[in-house]
């Protein structure tokens, strides 16, 4: 085993441990923070596989945005310090079954698809130039389909958050505030 492989295995164990802690911890915010460790570890794995571009995208999107959004949401709700037993829905066995099934399906798929392909780790494979070229030449259709999907999700989020009642209340509040401000100036 080379040094790279040893590090790969160690980081893999850390990622697995963090992921398990993430779903077993009884403290909500701790779960989000364990998720940070797991996702960050995955970025290191990408780096070890010489996929530099994917690694930085992983850090930018998942650590910098998704987890921050998660924490933001948790803080807007009640996220007390210490265990929150009322957050347990009792779906644990079902969730375990689903996750085991999807993990088995994924592993089987990856093993079946890439059993015979190997990459040489002594030169970079995931530089931004080649990634961009293959993305915008061979994979441009899935890329565009994903863009449309994201756009639809975006529009949907705006529609859901702008219900009629909400709008009126915001307008009222703005009017009140403007009134106060004008009163203060006058």
């Amino acid at each position: 085993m080379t040094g790279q492989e040893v590090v790969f295995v160690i980081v893999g164990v850390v990622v697995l441990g963090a992921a398990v802690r993430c779903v077993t911890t009884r403290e909500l915010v701790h779960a989000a923070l364990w998720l940070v460790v797991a996702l960050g570890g995955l970025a290191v794995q990408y780096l070890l596989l010489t996929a530099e571009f994917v690694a930085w995208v992983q850090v930018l999107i998942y650590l910098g945005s998704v987890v921050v959004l998660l924490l933001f949401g948790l803080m807007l709700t009640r996220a007390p310090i210490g265990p929150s037993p009322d957050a347990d829905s009792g779906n644990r066995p079902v969730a375990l079954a689903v996750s085991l099934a999807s993990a088995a399906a994924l592993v089987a798929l990856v093993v079946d698809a890439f059993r015979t392909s190997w990459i040489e780790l002594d030169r970079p494979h995931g530089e931004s130039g080649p990634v961009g070229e293959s993305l915008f030449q061979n994979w441009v259709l899935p890329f565009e389909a994903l863009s449309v999907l994201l756009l639809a999700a975006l529009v949907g989020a705006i529609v859901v958050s702008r219900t009629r009642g909400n709008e009126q209340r915001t307008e009222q509040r703005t009017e009140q505030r403007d009134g106060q401000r004008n009163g203060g100036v006058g």
Partner: protein
Amino acid sequence: MDVLDVAVRVAVVMVAFLVLPLLVGQTEHKVMAHMQGRLGPMHAGGFHGWAQLVADGVKFAQKEDTVPAGADRRVFQLAPAVALIPYLVVLVAIPLGPDGMVGQVLDAGIFFVLAVLGVGVLGSLMAGWASANKYSLLGALRTAAQLMAYELPLLLSAASVAMAAGTLSLTGILGEFEWWWVPWQLVGGVVFFTAGLAELQRPPFDAPIAPEEIIFGAYTEYSGLRFAFFLLAEYAGIVVVSALTAVLFLGGWHGPMSDQLGWLWMLLKTGALSFLVIWARVAWPRLRADQIQKFAWTVLVPLALAQIALTGVIKVVVSG
């Protein structure tokens, strides 16, 4: 790359990380004092109170490091490190001069820098939540909302430069740089610098730590060295944002005699931009939290998109 070379590069980055933020801090003391027509601390060290920063450091080290009784102890203690370390890591990728005067050449340098900078937010969020203090939580909420709003213009304006240069590498961008990029990318540069200012929560974007409203936001419960780490993160952030603006929009080490004096040009540009950051603190009153949001989404994002369109058009015209 042999071991000695790596060691020298790491040492230089460490020295820059330890010295430049303190220089900016000291400059801020003096510049603010002069702009506001007051003396400030003048006694420590004799000449103009130059040793005040050292005295401050000693004071921070002597103070008791307290953790509130209701706090989440481990997260509370870990937060300052999470806030500070990303800035150290980012410095590795910022080129100081031509011919490989950079800690490490990265193929996707812009991505690396912006991605790692985004991780620093987690420190503020962890601090705000773990303090078990409602002012801290409010500060953390404002921080998160502000950072999410300003991440977008920051990325878009950086993308414009990457489009212009045709590469994501910071050294590659400087290699392609021409003087007329400065007027061409001017709007993007202003957007980038402003968004960077907001990411650092510097005035006028300092609603997350507004002392008159929420004491000191996420850092309210901190004391001693851990508090000093948060302050150091702010000054290191000024250095990093100024240096990045200089590299992306002002040509970094380009200038007369750049073969010998490239590093000096880079430091001068970074210093001038840091001065602007300090000046902004003295010159502008604080924006309200909702004004900060509105400014990001209705002014900076459209401007950044317009810059990208302009970059695209000119790029096609020039190459075609």
